[in-house]
């Protein structure tokens, strides 16, 4: 059998890559995709826990996470478009009107 820790380590690696993408990329859309990557890594760990603990909680939470991710995507992209209309850039380092 595959040990539980392997799944969780995989998920940890994916999570870290997602964090890296969020912190290092300039393109807002790719940052957003990195966020989705983080969420997916969590989902992997949850499903793995759910399987190994023979509990349903994890799977149910994944279901809700996917739902929320969909809602988040809709709102996030709407905000992005609203921003882009006024200020046509999606480079994160050009978005610093508010600072100090």
């Amino acid at each position, binding site marked *: *059998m595959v*040990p*539980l*820790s*392997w*799944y*969780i*380590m*995989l998920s*940890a*690696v994916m*999570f*870290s*890559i*997602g964090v*890296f*993408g969020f*912190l*290092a*990329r*300039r*393109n807002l859309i*790719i940052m957003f*995709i*990195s966020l*989705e*990557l983080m969420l*997916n890594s969590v*989902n992997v760990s949850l*499903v*793995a826990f759910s*399987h*190994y*603990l*023979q*509990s*349903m909680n994890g*799977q*149910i939470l*994944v*279901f*809700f996470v*996917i*739902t929320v*991710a*969909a*809602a*988040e*995507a*809709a*709102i996030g*992209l*709407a*905000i*992005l*478009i*609203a921003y882009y209309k006024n200020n046509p850039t999606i*480079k*994160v*380092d050009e978005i610093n009107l508010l600072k100090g």
Partner: protein
Amino acid sequence: MTVHQLIFIYFAIAMTGISLLVVTRRNPVHSVLFMLVLFVHIAALYLFLNAEFLAAVQIIVYAGAIMVLFLFVIMLLNLRREETEEKFHRQWPVSAGAVAVLAVFFIMIVSKIVVLPALGEYSIDAIRSEGSIMTVGKVLFTKYLLPFEIASIILLVAIIGAIVLAKKSTNS
């Protein structure tokens, strides 16, 4: 090394590689496409973990809806400058360092994880006897009814929000 383990190792390497590709592609469209490949892998992994329902949801909702929305927005914004400019933020080496340290600790800690609590009632056989969808459905509409209803409000808020933020002009 069992077959299971070998298959897992393939998935682990593939998913790590694809994840890296997702966050390093210059063109966002490529990123989204690699993300789709990743989702397929994740869905397959769910199948190994006895979560057929989630595997389907992963493909239908994540790949089919969310990522398509991403693609749609990328097309809408029509990003030409992406080709020529710097991919990474100025702080990326610091980020990379921090994330590397975090990942090392993270992996060190979770590598020790073992199953501690008493096992629940949803063993592989129990799920198999009813089918994954039925099991999930039963739990979702009894024990998790309240979160389910809250999720519906969240979706409603998302709809309202998207409309409010994106509609042409206010009526006042």
